[in-house]
């Protein structure tokens, strides 16, 4: 192979974003899903930021559920589309498995970050939240988003090769992501209230690291038939 690993990974990443910008499939479905659910929640709950106890309990869970289900709705396509359009074979020939994983992972991570960039400011505005530690909120969103992206990349590659990919994806993803979501919800609560609850971010980053490393180890076995 003449091209370097980094070049292959970058090419996969650029290709995925180019396809995305042509069809706008993920951006449209993910962003619209997130927006719709957030508006419904806001309509029902009102400006709950005025009630500190209520918003502390409800908002972090709500935000992460919206991000998770938006991800589950649009992200499996990253691999399902490759299998359906039969481009997976070409991709297998063109790049090393670990480079494919890296490229897809960064692509999905940027998509998740884009959803969060829409959901988080809107949630702050619609619920009238007061954020005690903005930097920690960004850190919690980034670390939690990476957890969702890493698990999604691996699981999407698995379900793309089975039947009923989208329903199967939700079934497989929830138990894997549950510890990460519980940590992300707690870290978001800390960022909103400013009351420390232990080293949640460290644990969340540990989860991210473990799943990314496991992803690089397992992906070649998943990807190559």
């Amino acid at each position, binding site marked *: 192979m003449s091209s370097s690993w980094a070049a292959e990974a970058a090419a996969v990443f650029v290709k995925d974003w180019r396809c995305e910008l042509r069809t706008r499939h993920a951006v449209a479905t993910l962003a619209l899903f997130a927006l719709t659910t957030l508006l419904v929640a806001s309509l029902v709950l009102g400006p709950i930021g005025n009630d500190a106890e209520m918003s502390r309990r409800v908002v972090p869970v709500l935000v992460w559920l919206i991000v998770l289900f938006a991800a589950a709705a649009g992200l499996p396509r990253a691999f399902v589309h490759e299998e359906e359009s039969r481009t997976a074979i070409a991709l297998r020939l063109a790049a090393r498995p670990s480079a494919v994983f890296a490229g897809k992972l960064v692509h999905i991570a940027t998509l998740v970050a884009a959803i969060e960039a829409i959901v988080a400011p809107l949630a702050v505005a619609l619920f009238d939240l007061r954020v005690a530690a903005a930097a920690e909120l960004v850190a919690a969103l980034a670390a939690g988003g990476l957890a969702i992206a890493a698990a999604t990349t691996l699981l999407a590659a698995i379900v793309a090769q089975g039947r009923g990919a989208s329903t199967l994806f939700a079934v497989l993803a929830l*138990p894997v992501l549950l510890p990460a979501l*519980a940590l992300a919800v707690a870290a978001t609560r800390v960022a909103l209230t400013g009351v420390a609850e232990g080293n949640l971010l460290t644990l969340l980053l540990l989860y991210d690291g473990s*799943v990314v490393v496991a992803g690089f180890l397992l992906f070649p076995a998943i990807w190559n038939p």
Partner: protein
Amino acid sequence: MKRLLALSLWLWMAVVIWAAFHWAPLAAGFKGESSRILFFHVPVAWVSFVAFMTAGVESVLYLAGRRDPRHDRSAAAAVELGQVFAVLATVTGAIWARIMWGSYWNWDPRQSAIVVTMLYYAAYLALRQAIADGPSRARLSAAYAVLGLVVSPFLYFVLPRLGFSLHPEPVINAAGKLEVESRMLAVLTASSLGFTVLFYWLHALRRRLGAVAARRDEGVE
């Protein structure tokens, strides 16, 4: 020989059941006779752990080795049995929780952890249902099982820290101390051993059944 082993396991478990109800003393701080369920609850919970670990190890062996379908069948059989034992652990735990805490279900961190574990392996079995039999299914489900091994420490050690637990300290606790009366410990150990042997016996039967089914399918093709 096999019949002798089966008979001695039957005898062993019969003695364990008798000892659990008549020989072992009651634990202090437990309502009425409720501590006796411990002699069954702890071993079945332990066996479900052993079963899921067996499935994880067999999956690693499958992926790292020469992709021997025997490892795949063994992993699937271990998950199926692990689910049965996990249900038994949940039900015995819930009965005890009703007596001690007043309700069957309290979302205690340990209850949450076992529910998520059962969901995880139910997803594993759903994944196997969704893919046609063959190397593809073995490869993908093994990868999912190994991912489970990676995530499980967060489930068992991190999740419980996010909530307050009423669950008694596990027998093998963080301090490494055994705070169980010696006769209770004897029954508990004997029961755990009996259930573990029972699991490996059932597991061997399931594996043989799987091998026979595989050979039959090969013959059909």
